[in-house]
């Protein structure tokens, strides 16, 4: 089999490439260049940096496989970065990594896999695929603490059929041990945390790139009382507690952001609780929604899935939590699980209060 391995320069994709090679497959390594500095070079800090691409090249060289850097800065800028700015300025909390997977990376990589005559696409994601053609299931990784199935919920049967996650059955320690055994220089590299296109504070990035569109306004308590002023809504995210610039004697959290009015609504912890959320742009791994409405939903990359009930609506789906949940942030992905299995997912467009109709 001929495999196209997406190599980020991290330890996971390095080992993924090595495992494919060990299994006797032909391997081509690629790094997708998504973002660049003003001078056209790769960024110095963040993820997907010059040194990451150099790490990937070094690993490919060590493994003796051909390696290429593919330039897709244009698509990434349009579909991910600009969209991130628009969403953020509209008071939502976008997840650019998911937008990137959905709108850019997988499209490019699957297309490239085919045009280069490869049979499968391989990534270093911590997730598992089981089952046969047409009945593939996407499962959480064996190492639950590193599970990345949340960012893969947009895959469908045809793509799951052509993708491999060789390290999905390994713990992070296993992965590092293999990398070190193979003499790969990425063995001890820390996991990347940052957005690949933002070095430092993403709020500074928003201001720099999209101009000083931030509007100063009022910080208002849930009961309507004006508590203070702020210099711009981009400084706030749902659930934020620190740096609100108000003091009312008990902790206050950001409950909602209204960028048009320039208003930031804060309240006590209890005010963060919501009964459910609405989802749009839903996709299902199996190609269709589950028959049984009892599911679990994961509302953020690093959180537990919570037991819920799934209800179809005119525009998408509503999810009602069995127990109220804190800090549901429009713009984030809502991913539907049953046990370890990803059923599908979409984008959270609103928090719901009250009870299902």
């Amino acid at each position, binding site marked *: 089999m001929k495999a196209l391995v997406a190599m980020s320069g991290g330890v996971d994709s390095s080992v993924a490439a090595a495992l494919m090679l060990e299994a006797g497959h032909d391997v*081509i390594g690629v*790094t997708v260049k998504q973002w660049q500095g003003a001078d*056209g*070079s790769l960024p110095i800090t963040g993820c997907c940096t*010059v040194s990451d691409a150099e790490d990937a090249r070094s690993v490919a060289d060590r493994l003796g496989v*051909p390696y*290429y*850097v593919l330039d897709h800065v244009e698509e990434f800028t349009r579909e991910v970065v600009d969209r991130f700015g628009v969403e953020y300025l509209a008071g939502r909390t976008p997840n650019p990594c998911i937008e990137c997977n959905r709108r850019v990376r997988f499209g490019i990589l699957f297309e490239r896999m085919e*045009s*280069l005559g490869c049979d499968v696409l391989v990534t270093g994601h911590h997730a598992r695929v089981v089952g046969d053609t047409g009945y593939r299931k996407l499962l959480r990784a064996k190492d639950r603490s590193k599970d990345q199935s949340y960012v893969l919920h947009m895959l469908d049967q045809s793509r799951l059929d052509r993708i491999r996650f060789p390290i999905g059955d390994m713990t992070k320690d296993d992965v590092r041990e293999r990398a070190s055994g193979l003499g790969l220089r990425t063995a001890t590299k820390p996991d990347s945390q940052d957005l690949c296109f933002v070095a430092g504070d993403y709020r500074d990035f928003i201001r720099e790139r999209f101009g000083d569109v931030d509007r100063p306004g009022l910080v208002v308590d849930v009961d309507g009382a004006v508590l203070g002023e702020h210099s711009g809504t981009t400084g706030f995210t749902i659930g934020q507690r620190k740096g609100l610039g108000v003091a009312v004697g008990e902790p206050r959290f950001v409950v909602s952001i209204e960028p048009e009015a320039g208003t930031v609504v804060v309240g006590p912890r209890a005010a963060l609780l919501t009964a459910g959320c609405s989802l749009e742009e839903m996709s299902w791994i199996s190609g269709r929604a589950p028959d049984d409405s009892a599911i679990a939903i994961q509302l953020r990359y690093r959180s537990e899935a919570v037991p819920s009930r799934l209800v179809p609506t005119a525009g998408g789906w509503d999810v009602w939590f069995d127990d109220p949940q804190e800090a549901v942030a429009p713009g984030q992905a809502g991913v539907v699980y049953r046990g370890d299995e990803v059923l599908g997912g979409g984008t959270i467009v609103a928090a719901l209060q009250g009870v299902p109709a």
Partner: protein
Amino acid sequence: MTPPNTTLYLDHAATTPLRPEAREAMAPYLGDAYGNPSGIHAVSRVAKKALEEARERAAVLLGADHPLDVVFTGGGTESDNLGVAGPSLASGGGVVTTSVEHEAVLETAAFLRRLGRSVTVIEVDSMGLVDPLQVARAVGSETAVVSVMTANNETGVRQPVDQISAAVKEAYPEVLVHTDAVQAFVSEETTITSLGADLVTLSAHKFGGPKGVGLLHVRRGVPVEPVLHGGGQEIGRRSGTHNVAGIVGMVAAMEETVKDRDRFRADVGAARDEFEARLATAEPEVIFTTPAAGRLIQYSHFRIRGIDAETLLIRLDGLGVAASAGSACHSGAIEVSHVLAAMGLEREATRSSIRFSFGWTSRPGDGEVAAAAVVECIEAIR
């Protein structure tokens, strides 16, 4: 060593193998003759003699009035920096250049603009050509130097530097003309006389010399402010200890290049023309960016509608054929070409464009092999 699985190297415009004559000439200066030419003792004298003899031989090849008109540098980029910034910094005047120049010229012009100099960038037509009259009209009394490349590094398109120089000097005789002849020298005579230029940039590794060494031919009496400051080597125009082995190797390669040019043109021309004829026959969707007549003989620059350059190059690499898109950054990713954009090519066309560049090791039969490889890749992609 060429990697064992690379069977056909068609990226000579990126760099070309070291000529054996150059390697042989360099060997003593990588060994016993290790002296620094700027010294008083016998060890230095050996190096100094080699350096100045190399300069004299280069001066002969370039038709220089005096050997000291040849300034040895660290390569094409440095020569371009000195050739453009040197006159501008010396006189305070500005720069007129074109939108298809190498970054070494464009970025130097941008730097001079930041220093407050006037900079005018002339657009090219759809064939990548600049109009001499348009250049001359952009020149004014505030202009120090006009920089137009002898031939483009991506497309191989030759500019009418002699006509540009004549048009400029008719209006402003004191304005200097610099040309980057880095790609042209291997296949064409590029002297200040043949080009009508005052400053000519050459880079050793494009014609079979080593990397990291080049020269700037500065016409007698032309004032050039240095861009590298230090010990005052090269009569103050380029400080830094001489790369003696590199310089000796470069000049040996220059001599061999001039001696070998007729043979080069015959073999490379046959390979290039055979390649284009076969590709055009086999592949009706092929578009050559510019007509062969206006290009350097070693260049083929083309695209095939619907075939992405990145995919084709990776496929070719898999078959052992080394080529490029003509414009790559240090990471190896293909960049959007400012040259093709300046020629008005649409995004799709720029992303499909490929450069094949033949060189002194190419054989006449390489064209046939290259065309067959491209056809094989295209069929596999489709």
